[in-house]
């Protein structure tokens, strides 16, 4: 959403890029030979783990986008619980349920811990913030598109 908070600047950006895979576009498979991918969210389940590996394989520059991707953030709170992945499921689908108390099984399995991206793959750039500000997103993307290294010092904050 913060990406869209660039407002009219998204439209300017549109002239410089080809959008090949995104929640707001209709591609179903992650394509090959992608220049830049922004990956948000921590890695919480097996499906995401596979997708992230595929993204890494097919992408030149991978950016960890937002605090969850950078260090796990709120998503990783479950890592503080002993057996966290089982306990969160138990609470939602057994304790807080009135009919057919059962943990879904035909769904992607949760990983034992929620992982930051760099615990799984090599990350080229980190864009912190919850969410990163629209100005910062715009700056980083434009620098990367110009082939420069974005300097984040004094420009960002966590949270």
């Amino acid at each position: 959403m913060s990406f869209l908070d660039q407002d009219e600047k998204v439209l300017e950006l549109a002239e410089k890029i080809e959008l090949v895979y995104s929640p707001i576009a209709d591609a179903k498979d992650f394509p090959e030979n992608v220049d830049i991918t922004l990956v948000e969210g921590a890695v919480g389940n097996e499906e995401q783990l596979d997708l992230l590996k595929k993204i890494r394989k097919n992408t030149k520059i991978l950016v960890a986008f937002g605090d969850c991707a950078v260090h796990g953030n709120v998503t990783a709170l479950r890592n503080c619980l002993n057996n966290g992945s089982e306990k969160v499921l138990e609470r939602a689908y057994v304790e807080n349920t009135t009919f057919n108390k059962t943990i879904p099984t035909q769904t992607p399995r949760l990983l034992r811990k929620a992982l930051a991206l760099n615990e799984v793959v090599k990350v080229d750039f980190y864009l912190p913030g919850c969410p990163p500000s629209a100005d910062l997103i715009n700056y980083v993307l434009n620098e990367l598109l110009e082939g420069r290294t974005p300097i984040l010092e004094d420009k960002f904050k966590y949270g």
Partner: protein
Amino acid sequence: MVSEIVINPVTRIEGHGKITIYLDENGTVREARFHVTDFRGFEKICEGRPFYEMPGITSRICGICPVSHLLASAKACDELVAVEIPRAAELLRRLMHMGQIIQSHALSFFYLSSPDFLLGMDSKPSKRNILGLLEKYPEIAKQGVWLRKFGQKIIETLSGRRIHSSDWIVPGGVRTPLSREGAEKILADIPKALETALNAVELFRKTMDSFKSEMKDFGDFPTYYMSLVTKDGGLEHYDGKIRILSPEGKVVADQLNPSKYFEYIGEAVEEWSYMKFPYLKSIGYPEGAYRVGPLARLNNVSHCRTKVADELLKEFKKLGRNGIVQNTFMYHYARLIEIVFCIEKARELLEDPEILDTNTQAKASLNRREAVGVVEAPRGTLFHHYKVDEQGRIVWVNLIIATVNNNIAFNKAVTQVAKKYVEGKRLSEGILNRVEAVVRALDPCLSCATHAIGEMPMKIQLYDHSGKLLDEAARG
């Protein structure tokens, strides 16, 4: 030989989901399912945190409607400390809520759904998005971007940031008052906002005419409806009591206490989805299916309480039988009418002199051990229920998220559209897009729904009756 078609991931929605279409021996559709495939577990991970952190933590459930979570959570916290918040604080919270509904509805209509009806259900998938819209209809795309920005700017003016304003909405009220300049800045944009929203209404009316023949199988079915309403049955998003409407359009329950939701709403689980299935306890599962959100709210109310929106509501109600509109496609229309309402309401709030009052927070410590906070989020009724220990640490949480209330309806809707369009074993891309489009009309927020991670797109699979995978939608 049963077959199954899988659409994975479903795109242009918020969150990660897929659709499976099951076929019988003759290759006709038996059933379709909408699965949500991710889960984070907020109901457990918040345990041990001080209650006053809850607005900040739970607003991270979602980047589209964080204000809803902030409000529901802060209302629960107001209850825990047992204070009545200052009137200025309530006005300011309401104003931020209006800003959020405007931006969320504008996102749903312009960014996510309008490419389907403006560019066409069968148009090229690589262009069927907001950027494709910008190429073909730059004026409409720019209006959409501007309207969303208008909503976000209300939030930013109040709290200093657009997403996760969690240090502004706090237990007991809001952290800082609104400046006169801030109020005037928002007021100055209201005429343009209203004009833009009314243009969108006009645009949608034209779309409706060209979409008439497809519309009758676009998730048109009876269900119950639930929403908050005012004492006299008017449109309400921040406070109010619960009303439930029968599939025939009769009020079957009214002015129910939202804090006692567990007396009338049950939650069921199916093994194939992380999204739970709430139902009306008195009717049972799954017959007690109900819908929430813009369509439910407009069906439930007798009036909106603002001038232009009330005129639109009258026209809207004529589209249904007994004054209730059951077609899922009409969620779009209801959403646009709500945008108009929110803009008018924002002006009304800003014209109240008390909104500039500088007393905006009542301070108190823990006085209760259990509380429920409820609001109408853009997508429907949102419940936050907390229990705390004697030191105010969270010991138990239950959340019923707006989108989740619609879960049975999602499955009915995709089944109806699939039955109409899917035949045999091979699918065209445009057909699958129609199945997705009905999901988009209900505007799910799946990160919210299962308190799941991030925003990722969604997938359709076609299986035959023996469980053999026949086809999978893979665009790109």
